[in-house]
């Protein structure tokens, strides 16, 4: 025993020099020692709390979101989001660009569902101009917006799974999302930031044979969603991690201006596609997904099943796609086809005028709102009769949804804070603009 005592004395002295917690756990403890000493850790009777900074470079903050958390041990007492790290003055840039160039700017705001941004911008310009868009253009817009909703929710499934530790979900979600992005590349030429929906219609008609490719992608995604559902929705580890966590009520959502899947997860079935359709959503069959618990699990499930609803809408769009023009044939508003420029002097002049000074919009102001994958995205636009807007403001749903971190995150654990932020699905490009 003496040799043992000597060893432990020496060992204690060595451990004394080490201050990290890992070394302290090496000390021999017995049950009696733990009880006599009031537990392994000194009891925190002082009630002092600690402010911990998470982000802006934390991988689970979906970009550059910084959270200031007040902690009592592992318990989060309150969370305050700090934003602005991605602020690039896109609204100021929007005032410098003409209406023709504007969509290239707004498409970079919510980069995970860019079509919704382009749509509100274009619809605001069209409303100020009093332009009626051809039916085919409207249906193309609706189909692309729903494909974009699928891509955005697949991105959420991937990153949400990764944040919770289900890393295989990241790869599955990315795999299916990539298929949708290939459609975007096929139709618009670009995988992201497509700049496809423009004032007056869309940039180009759908390429030949688009029906089969889009239906194939729908099948792939629907099969993928069935897999995720099987893998996660009844998985005990997943349920343990998500059910009853980050609960928010309908009243809190309404007071804080929170829209989209977070609002629907509280039992409030509000969807602008049903309530105030700006595109012909009343001519297609789909359901509003809503749940009643308002927790992380419900928000995951809503986004999962909304992918299926979007696939339903896309299939009906393929079926019902009307013939006609893909944009307004107004030479002052939409550029001439490339082939016409070689033949017609007037076409060349129109092209030049449109891309140098743009078209002029009568003075006025308007607000247009549609349902993006994250909630109500709106565009408030003020024109003074020139070819550039006086004010172009995008109401980004993530900007408002981030305010829900306060009620959701209080009384959770640090590890749960990651799950809660992930379930809000913020896109920081849209938050900071």
């Amino acid at each position, binding site marked *: 025993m003496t040799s043992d005592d000597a060893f432990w004395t020496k060992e204690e002295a060595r451990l004394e020099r080490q201050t990290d917690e890992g070394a302290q756990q090496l000390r021999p403890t017995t049950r009696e020692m733990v009880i006599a000493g009031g537990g392994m850790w000194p009891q925190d009777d002082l009630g002092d709390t600690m402010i911990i900074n998470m982000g802006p470079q934390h991988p689970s903050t979906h970009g550059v979101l910084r959270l200031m958390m007040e902690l009592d041990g592992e318990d989060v007492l309150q969370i305050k989001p700090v934003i602005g790290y991605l602020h690039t003055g896109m609204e100021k840039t929007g005032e410098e660009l003409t209406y023709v160039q504007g969509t290239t700017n707004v498409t970079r705001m919510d980069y995970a569902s860019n079509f919704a941004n382009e749509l509100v911008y274009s619809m605001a310009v069209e409303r100020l101009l009093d332009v009626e868009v051809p039916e085919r253009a409207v249906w193309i817009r609706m189909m692309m917006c729903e494909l974009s909703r699928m891509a955005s929710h697949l991105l959420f499934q991937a990153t949400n799974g990764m944040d919770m530790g289900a890393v295989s979900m990241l790869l599955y979600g990315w795999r299916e999302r990539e298929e949708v992005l290939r459609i975007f590349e096929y139709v618009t030429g670009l995988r992201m930031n497509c700049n496809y929906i423009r004032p007056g219609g869309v940039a180009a008609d759908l390429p030949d044979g688009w029906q089969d490719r889009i239906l194939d992608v729908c099948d792939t995604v629907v099969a993928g969603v069935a897999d995720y559902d099987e893998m996660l929705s009844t998985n005990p580890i997943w349920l343990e991690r998500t059910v009853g966590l980050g609960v928010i009520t309908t009243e809190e959502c309404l007071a804080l201006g929170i829209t989209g899947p977070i609002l629907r997860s509280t039992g409030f079935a509000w969807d602008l596609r049903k309530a105030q359709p700006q595109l012909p959503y009343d001519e297609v069959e789909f359901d509003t997904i809503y749940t009643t618990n308002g927790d992380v699990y419900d928000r995951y499930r809503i986004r999962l099943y909304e992918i299926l609803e979007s696939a339903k809408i896309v299939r009906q769009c393929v079926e019902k796609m009307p013939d006609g023009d893909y944009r307004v044939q107004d030479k002052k508003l939409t550029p001439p086809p490339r082939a016409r420029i070689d033949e017609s002097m007037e076409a060349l002049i129109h092209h030049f005028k449109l891309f140098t000074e743009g078209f*002029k919009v009568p003075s006025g102001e308007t607000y247009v709102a549609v349902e993006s994958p994250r909630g109500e995205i709106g565009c408030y636009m003020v024109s003074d009769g020139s070819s550039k807007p006086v004010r172009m403001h995008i109401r980004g749903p993530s900007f408002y949804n981030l305010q829900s971190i306060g009620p959701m995150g209080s009384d959770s654990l640090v590890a749960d804070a990651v799950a809660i932020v992930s379930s809000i699905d913020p896109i920081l490009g849209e938050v900071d603009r």
Partner: protein
Amino acid sequence: MADDTAREEDHEPAVSGGPAPGPVSDEVAAAIVARFDGSVFVESHGQPVVYVDRSVIADVALMLRDEEQFTMLIDTVVVDHLLDGSRVRVDGIAAERFEVVVNFLSHPRNRRIRIVCEVPAADPTVPSLTPVYPGANFPERESYDLFGIVFAGHPDLTRILMPDDWHGHPLRKDDAAARVPVTFKGDPSPR
């Protein structure tokens, strides 16, 4: 050929003389106009807009929330009209440099309304709507940050998008874009 008929004079679109104040076609707007003296209703592209005095905007918001079932404050936007070419003039409203525009949405009644108040540049102060609608917190901070509009009664009126030590309000029209030069690694900070 069709596109040869277009002429240069067609290029100038007619500038509208602004919305004419007619009979109030929106019941909520009518209630606001009846209760608050000096409010003016206009219809802007089919959407109801009410211009109110900035001193009563919190009362208008309270009325919308408690009596008219407007459940959500959608957005608070500021517009700087310093350099406007042709601005929409509303009869009965003295135009000022700034406009604070607040969008409301009623879920039960499925309708929207927009409240606008004029704010002079000399005294850019507006009562905060955050006590009425807590969701106005972030957008009012954004408006303060980018336009320098002070929302009186806001619980935490600090910069939200720009750095805390930033000088100026970048979305004002007299704050030119690219005012701050691009800096490279090792350069002294522009601030």
